[in-house]
């Protein structure tokens, strides 16, 4: 007997934490397996209820240093909302900290720098008062960094937190020492560095807050996918129709569906006929005909007819549920990218520590008396100056300005991670229908048998399709309107789903439909066949027009390529990026579109569940993949890709699952996004140079290299100057992004 429960986990922030929680859970006797997802912050545990229970699981996770929630989670549902609330709460807390730091830093600054602020009140200069002001900044505002430092120590790494914690603690405790024993230190000319500690912490905290804001909203894709399946189903039991919750439908139940309703579970039609919009599954823009024996899928929309089907797959087994699981897994497998600043710190910290140690030893052995005091003071000075306050601002300021600029060009970037990853993408995969193509059929060819003309054919067909909701009808009407054709009077429409339209014109009966439609009525359309076959080979859909049993002509419709598609593909290729197309459509149609778009690599006849698999496969072979899509069936692939790009004209769910939205529905946005990413990362790197630069230049000064020459050692003024200049440089450099323009129009 095994029970399975999914519970929220709090406190994890890296892959090592995931391992710890999983081990803690599997160590509990009675647990068969535990799997923890970092991105969704959930743990799924399979256990034997006779030997273990949730309380024991919670105790085990608690002992490992994390927190396991109490309420079990249902798949999808309120997760995104909870996470969103937690995220907003975290952001609020960060903001409070930053504000507190700022408010306290102002008087500290005023009091510490009488040279620059001679008008500041004298009582503020008292080091004891500065100590009182600086302490909450150091230990409350700065708490996350000190915690990070301890975390880094445990795992023997170094990050920004290490640098900040080391530097500010050195500054703070040194300042406390100077405050406690002023006479001892006054001899060296040493001063307290309260303002350095406070400002550094405040600015780095500011950077963290900006980053949290830039990280974006949690994706709501799962919740929206879940709402696609209706909550109730009309089941036929004992001859009576009963509305039951969808969760209670069983395999074998008979379900009735009326026009306009969403199908609740997967099944097979047993009675009736209709057409169904399956675009969410296949991306196919044309409705699919359903007759006895046809499969139907949960989440799709029934269009015109009414039918009864037998449920074949329910609950977690439906195709919709599989899509949801795919999106969840894809979202969960996203590793958070390490901050660039952290990577610099990893290298920088050991170097600084070595320099500080060398400084200490050097002064102690070679320095003037009191050499121990000089050694301590200058080693501390090295640590203090090595902590750049602007390093926390380097990335978020650039990202903020960059995403803002992108939005001005119709490229909505939802997360900082997307902007950072885009420039490294080496493969772009385009969905076909609705992405590379417009997504709706348009008239591509009109053929007339003399004496009828093309205008006659188009006008009569449009008249017959005037009230039609079918995409083919809409295409024909649109084209006729475009040409300003006068439509003959046509009445008595009857649509035969999947086949055609039957209507009455003054001259006789009008039939507009496919070959099967005509054959069923005994009309001889062989005169139109040769023309039609050539078009069908090219992947187009052809409808014949017959008036009073005389074939008049044919109209071909097809989904057309977006006009900017070939240019976009060419631009991406010119940047050394591989371009592929993936689609559920048949190979013939797919290749025709691919050829016109200018790409050679086509993955056709791919089922929605396999789209994500293809992306994963590309990723596994070392590529950085961006996926461009618009439909619900693209959601798993969009979530799986390193960067998911959704068309603004696409479904809400695709937009939620993706990291970037092309608001203008223009494919060139992909190139714009790529360029923006490249430029933004360049600015981030420049920012890091500015952030570290001034401080690095002053490290030798702090170490005392200028002492033998000019008696110059580090002073709070110098440290303050470095802080000011580096911060201003970083912000100004980031603002330069406001003037960026993409090279494509």
């Amino acid at each position, binding site marked *: 007997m095994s029970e399975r429960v999914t519970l929220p986990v709090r406190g994890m922030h890296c892959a090592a934490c995931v391992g710890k929680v999983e081990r803690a859970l599997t160590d509990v006797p009675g647990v068969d397996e535990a799997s923890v997802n970092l991105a969704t912050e959930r743990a799924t545990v399979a256990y034997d209820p006779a030997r273990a229970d949730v309380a024991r699981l919670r105790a085990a996770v608690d002992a490992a240093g994390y927190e396991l929630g109490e309420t079990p989670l249902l798949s999808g549902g309120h997760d995104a909302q909870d996470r969103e609330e937690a995220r907003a709460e975290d952001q609020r807390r960060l903001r409070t900290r930053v504000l507190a730091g700022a408010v306290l830093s102002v008087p500290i600054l005023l009091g510490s720098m009488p040279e620059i602020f001679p008008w500041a009140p004298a009582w503020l200069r008292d080091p004891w008062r500065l100590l009182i002001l600086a302490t909450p900044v150091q230990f409350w505002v700065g708490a996350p960094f000190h915690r990070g430092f301890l975390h880094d120590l445990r795992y023997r790494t170094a990050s920004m937190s290490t640098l900040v914690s080391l530097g500010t603690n050195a500054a703070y405790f040194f300042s406390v020492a100077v405050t406690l024993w002023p006479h001892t230190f006054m001899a060296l000319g040493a001063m307290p560095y309260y303002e350095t500690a406070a400002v550094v912490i405040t600015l780095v905290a500011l950077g963290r807050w900006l980053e949290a804001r830039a990280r974006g909203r949690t994706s709501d894709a799962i919740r929206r996918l879940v709402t696609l399946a209706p909550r109730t189903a009309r089941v036929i039991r004992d001859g009576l129709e009963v509305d039951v919750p969808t969760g209670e439908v069983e395999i074998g139940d008979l379900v009735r569906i009326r026009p306009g309703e969403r199908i609740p579970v997967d099944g097979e039609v047993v009675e009736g006929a209709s057409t169904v919009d399956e675009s969410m599954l296949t991306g196919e823009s044309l409705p699919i005909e359903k007759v006895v024996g046809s499969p139907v899928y949960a989440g799709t929309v029934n269009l015109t007819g009414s039918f009864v089907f037998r449920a074949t797959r329910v609950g977690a087994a439906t195709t919709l549920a599989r899509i949801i699981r795919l999106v969840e897994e894809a979202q969960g497998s996203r590793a958070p990218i390490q901050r660039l600043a952290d990577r610099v710190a990893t290298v920088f910290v050991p170097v600084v520590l070595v320099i500080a140690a060398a400084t200490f030893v050097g002064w102690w052995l070679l320095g003037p008396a009191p050499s121990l005091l000089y050694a301590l003071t200058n080693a501390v000075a090295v640590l203090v100056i090595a902590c750049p306050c602007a390093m926390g601002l380097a990335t978020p300021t650039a990202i903020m300005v960059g995403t803002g600029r992108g939005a001005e060009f119709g490229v909505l970037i939802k997360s900082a991670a997307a902007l950072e990853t885009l420039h490294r993408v080496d493969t772009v995969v385009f969905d076909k229908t609705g992405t590379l193509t417009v997504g709706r059929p348009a008239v591509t060819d009109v053929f007339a048998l003399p004496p009828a003309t093309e205008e006659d054919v188009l006008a009569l067909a449009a008249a017959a399709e005037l009230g039609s909701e079918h995409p083919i009808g809409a295409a024909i009407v649109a084209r006729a309107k475009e040409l300003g054709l006068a439509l003959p009077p046509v009445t008595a429409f009857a649509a035969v789903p999947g086949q055609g339209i039957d209507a009455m014109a003054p*001259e006789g*009966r009008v039939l507009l439909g496919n070959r099967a439609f005509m054959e069923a009525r*005994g009309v001889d359309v062989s005169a139109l066949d040769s023309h039609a076959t050539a078009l069908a080979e090219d992947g187009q859909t052809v409808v014949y027009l017959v008036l*009073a*049993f005389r074939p008049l002509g044919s109209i071909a419709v097809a989904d057309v390529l977006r006009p900017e598609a070939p240019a976009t593909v060419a631009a991406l290729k010119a940047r050394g990026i591989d371009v592929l197309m993936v689609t559920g459509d048949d190979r013939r149609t797919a290749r025709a579109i691919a050829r016109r778009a200018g790409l050679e690599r086509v993955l056709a006849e791919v089922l929605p569940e396999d789209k994500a698999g293809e992306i994963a496969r590309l990723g596994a072979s070392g590529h950085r993949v961006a996926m461009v899509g618009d439909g619900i069936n693209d959601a798993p692939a969009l979530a799986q890709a390193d960067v998911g790009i959704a068309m603004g004209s696409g479904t809400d769910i695709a937009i939620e699952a993706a990291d970037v939205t092309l608001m203008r529905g223009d494919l060139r946005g992909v190139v714009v996004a790529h360029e923006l990413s490249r430029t933004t990362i360049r600015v981030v790197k420049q920012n890091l140079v500015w952030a570290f630069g001034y401080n690095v230049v002053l490290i030798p000064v702090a170490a005392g290299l200028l002492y033998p020459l000019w008696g110059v050692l580090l002073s709070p003024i110098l440290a303050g100057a470095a802080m000011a200049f580096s911060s201003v440089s970083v912000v100004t450099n980031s603002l330069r992004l406001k003037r960026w323009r993409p090279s494509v129009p």
Partner: protein
Amino acid sequence: MTTDPVCKMSVEPTKAAAQSVYKGQTYYFCAVGCKQKFDREPDKYLAGGASPMTR
């Protein structure tokens, strides 16, 4: 004007829903269903003396 051999309704040829050619004669039907019945057993319906298209 002609008569549907299956349901015996009068049908205007240009407005008929369906047609069938049998033994060189064209017959018109009021609905697709009637044509389907006719195509399965044409002689059965013609035995009743339905008139082929007169014109």
